[in-house]
């Protein structure tokens, strides 16, 4: 059983999908000979050829748009957008066509496309390389949005995304690409979609997070445990749809909720979670819901990115605040 990083888990899943299903095609900028700027597609073109692992022209709108056309013919394109700041040109195709194709043709044409892209900052990258734009995607009907945080879940969820008959956006936490290794069995088994994962059980407060912020959130839970504060940590994993049942069950137990995300606070996904808890579990709450998020500024260039990304200290303080309430 190989011990692999998250990005290697993605590579294993892509190789598995390509060898199991002749309809799977990997495409994007530099995904071929170069194996992707993060090496997610390393070695795949050598194994599967230049048509099934293809370098596209440098145009994100085209990558999404041609995927719609390929999918209508029964292929299963797995496209890569190189960095999330370059998502914008593809949004026209994602929102106007990919997400709507099945509905507007009453099921005649479908769009089994996966669009992978790095998510979040913290790797000292150039401008426009560190964005957390999940809400732009979660707002659209017809899409699923995933964000796995471990090598094994990246492997199993990418297989699930590729096998799903509808479009899935697959966000890969850049900061976690090589942070940890884990045993991953390359058994071709997909994980179930639409589910959050309880990473740590606790009695005092529920922490909900996703993407690379899971790292800081878990560290905070560890530190707070030394103060006898029991944190239940939920890795949201599925950003659309949200597994509200798992969150509500946890809040019913702890009575307190702190939501941690790297994206900007205003109209962020944390607001959707907080609103749902207010609607459905207000009387379970012993304290106001807290959000620890990126600021409502632009994602700063890397000299200041650590000032933007919520720190362990900020999370710990929010948890302590909610326990004082």
């Amino acid at each position, binding site marked *: 059983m190989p011990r692999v990083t998250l990005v290697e888990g993605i590579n294993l899943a892509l190789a598995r999908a390509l060898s199991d299903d002749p309809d799977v095609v990997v495409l994007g900028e530099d995904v071929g000979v170069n194996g992707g700027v993060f090496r997610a597609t390393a070695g795949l073109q050598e194994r599967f050829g230049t048509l099934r692992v293809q370098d596209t022209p440098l145009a994100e709108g085209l990558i999404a748009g041609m995927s719609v056309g390929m999918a209508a013919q029964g292929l299963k394109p797995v496209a890569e957008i190189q960095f999330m700041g370059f998502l914008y040109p593809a949004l026209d195709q994602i929102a106007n066509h990919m997400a709507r194709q099945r509905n507007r043709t*009453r099921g005649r044409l479908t769009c089994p496309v996966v669009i992978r892209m790095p998510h979040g900052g913290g790797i000292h990258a150039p401008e426009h390389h560190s964005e957390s734009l999940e809400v732009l995607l979660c707002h659209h009907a017809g899409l699923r949005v995933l964000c796995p945080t471990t090598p094994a879940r990246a492997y199993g969820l990418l297989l699930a995304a590729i096998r799903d008959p509808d479009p899935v956006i697959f966000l890969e936490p850049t900061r976690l690409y090589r942070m940890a290794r884990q045993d991953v069995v390359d058994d071709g088994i997909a994980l179930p979609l639409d589910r959050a994962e309880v990473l740590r059980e606790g009695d005092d407060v529920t922490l909900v997070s996703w993407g690379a912020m899971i790292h800081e959130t878990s560290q905070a839970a560890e530190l707070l445990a030394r103060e006898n504060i029991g944190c239940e940590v939920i890795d949201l994993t599925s950003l659309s749809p949200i597994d509200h049942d798992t969150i509500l069950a946890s809040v019913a137990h702890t009575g307190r909720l702190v939501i941690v995300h790297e994206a900007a606070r205003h109209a962020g996904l944390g607001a959707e979670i907080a609103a749902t808890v207010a609607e459905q579990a207000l009387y379970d709450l012993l304290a106001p819901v807290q959000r620890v998020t990126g600021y409502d500024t632009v994602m700063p260039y890397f000299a200041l990115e650590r000032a933007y990304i919520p720190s362990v200290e900020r999370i710990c303080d929010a948890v302590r605040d909610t326990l004082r309430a």
Partner: protein
Amino acid sequence: MKTVAEFAIAYEQLLDGEGRATAALPAFAADEGQMLAMYRMMVLCRLFDAKAINLQRTGKLGTYAPCTGHEATHVAVGAAMRAEDVLCPVYREYGTQIWRGVTLTEILTYWAGDERGTNFAVPRDDFPWCVPIGSQTPHAAGVAMAFKIRGEPRCAVAYIGDGGTSQGAFHEAVNLAGAQQLPVVFVIVNNGWAISVPASAQTGAQTFAQKGLGNGVPGIQVDGNDVIGVRKVMEDALDRARQGDGPMVVEAVTYRLSDHTTADDASRYRPAAELEAAWKLEPLLRTRRYLTAQGWWDDEREAQLRAECAVRIEEAVHGYQHRSPAGPDHMFEHLFANPPARLAPQRDNARRYGPSALRQH
């Protein structure tokens, strides 16, 4: 300095404004059955257009995009394509779509605000109407990529307007097609106007066909009111693409004799004299002159054809007006193969508060 690239754009016209041959005609032009089939479809489109506009004016149809003036191009493209090819239309190319099997009832159902009209019984692989301008062209490139990957001898055809060629998506799609030598033909229907903006203000290029060349794809211009010329150019382009010799950009020069849509009033921006001159070159008249000169057509047949078309159109109108009502459930159906849990309660809410049937056009 030396010249490292040169280009020329050929212009094809086989039938002039009087319906006379300007060059040797292809074999199908001597085939009465084939020529009459195209003319019949052109007349059907013209009459269908008038009916659809009337339905909109009397509140029985939503905003409608007319096709009057484009019939030769639309029908010729349909006649040149094979059934197994795939069309990525814009939203007014009814002549191509009807030729390929889309029904008049489906077209009316769509413009009545009901997306069930896009669920074509035939042709199942064709794309539905595409409203965001230019965004259909990458779909055609993707369809053609699928044909290339699978080694299927099929072609994709994408329509786009003169205004649409200003979109980045068009250039991205043509560029990919050139780089990968994909079996796709991009048909630019240059009808002179993008709503209120004339083609002359859309670009500094002498032709729209040459927008292919900058992206590595040959371009040709054809008289878009010449049904024989367009069909010949399209057959050649499709043969070439099908044989693996790569894509083509075809600019069909025609004229939008109608408003942009029923929500538009072209008299506010379009010179009356220009419209009047364009009517003299319209495609039905010259095709009819050609057919008459061959001894294949006369007033009696014309009257009979128009009567047949009227019956067919009335049947289609009856079909869409008597379809089952679209209910709130339709919003939720076909959104996902496996819908997320949150949708069922929303659907129940829509059932409870929504109209039992949307107002029927």
